[in-house]
């Protein structure tokens, strides 16, 4: 039980996928202007991350390892994630139009999201069991959503701030991202 707890804390706060491992920076900067959009993106990433985590783990354990072709990990995982996202999008469009409307536009962006691939690879590197893979993926998804929501909260406030012209837009967002990253460094002594 304690192991799972450590995985959760470490994935959400200490090794936060965006702010400590610098994966998935593109949606972090691109989809963090509005709180609603960042929640949608967080939801879509969580969904895909957990599914992809399970599937890539199965492929690694039952396909790549027995045939001793672990070096194909990256390309195989990319293939899985891309196909999975496409599949999920189709199913969602058919059976849950409201969910598709809410998440649909974010889904194609996730195909090439390095956070998804990164978590899948970390799962394998740490030699987790299936249960731990699930918990680990879910915690990283939560960490990603947390970072996005925090960022969008700050950026919504910034709309009213008087920012020098040369710093408006992406420059100030990058400065904020750096400050948030430093703040999250403070969690490193937590465990």
């Amino acid at each position, binding site marked *: 039980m304690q192991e799972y707890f450590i995985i959760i804390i470490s994935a959400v706060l200490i090794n936060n996928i965006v702010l400590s491992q610098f994966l998935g920076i593109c949606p972090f900067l691109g989809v963090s202007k509005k709180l609603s959009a960042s929640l*949608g993106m967080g939801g879509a990433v969580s969904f895909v991350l957990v599914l992809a985590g399970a599937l890539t783990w199965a*492929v690694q354990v039952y*396909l790549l390892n027995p045939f001793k072709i672990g070096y194909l990990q990256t*390309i195989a995982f990319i293939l899985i994630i891309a196909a999975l996202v496409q599949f999920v999008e189709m199913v969602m469009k058919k059976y849950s139009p409201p969910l598709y409307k809410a998440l649909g536009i*974010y889904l194609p962006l996730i195909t090439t999201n390095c956070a998804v691939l990164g978590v899948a690879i970390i799962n394998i590197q740490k030699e987790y069991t299936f249960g731990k893979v699930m918990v680990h993926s879910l915690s990283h998804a939560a960490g990603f959503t947390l970072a996005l929501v925090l960022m969008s909260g700050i950026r919504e406030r910034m709309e009213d701030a008087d920012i020098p012209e040369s710093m408006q837009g992406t420059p100030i967002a990058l400065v904020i991202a750096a400050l948030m990253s430093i703040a999250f460094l403070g969690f490193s002594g937590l465990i």
Partner: protein
Amino acid sequence: MLVAVVTLSSMGAIFGIVLGIAAKKFAVEVDPRVEDLLKIMPGANCGACGQPGCAAFAEAIVAGTVTPDSCSPGGASLYEKIAAIMGTEASAYEERQVAQLLCQGDNTHTRMLYRYEGVTDCHASLTNFKGPKACNFGCVMQGSCSQVCPFGAIQMGANGLPVVDYYRCTGCNKCVVECPLQLYKLVGVSHLVNVRCVNTEKGKGAKANCSTACIKCKICEKNCPEDAVHVVVQGEGTVALIDYEKCTNCGICAAKCPTKSIDKIMPLSEEVILEVGETPTPGCTHCGVCAPQ
């Protein structure tokens, strides 16, 4: 080597087949007319039609919940194309409208009470003693309209006032809604003579604050051959107003107006009156409708 090639290609093949089957099985029927309509839309996603973006407008047309003439950027030509796709007759389309700024009180004409150095936003500027101008009706020149215009048709001029580019303006109504002083009015492009002042104060007070204010002298009223311009009651006072139904663009009132608060603009070239010119399709306006922000 062989194992790797076979494994990867079989994975690819399996995923391909699964996706192919899924695409057939989970196919959602989309009315082909929606896609056709979307192709001819101006693509500015300005929201003038009342729908959230062009895609939603296309769907709403097919669903029959909006009238196809609600797109003002597209104008008459788009209306005809929509009618062709939907298989309906295009009835007479209203004249193209452009936004007219109802203030000429720039830096050189209007007395300033103080110098405003704050957020460049008209709403913010107005919170300080109703703006820096002595005239409480006039443009505060912080350019909120220019920022909100999705077509880049409003630029801030050298004298501080925004300048509307009538060739680019599509009459999307955004500036009309944005302006905290209601200084924009949508006027048909064929109407060339406009009263560019909304100051309803008495003549003396208005004149003291701005040299190009309407002073209610009624000279325009007396000289108009068509009885089209009158000083009418508006708010707590009066101001000159032109009845566009009667106005023939003769420009006598503009010539006689002692403060030049009535203005006659140059007519736009013919093709622009009939439809939107080549510039208005603005390309990407970073509206974020196609991709999340």
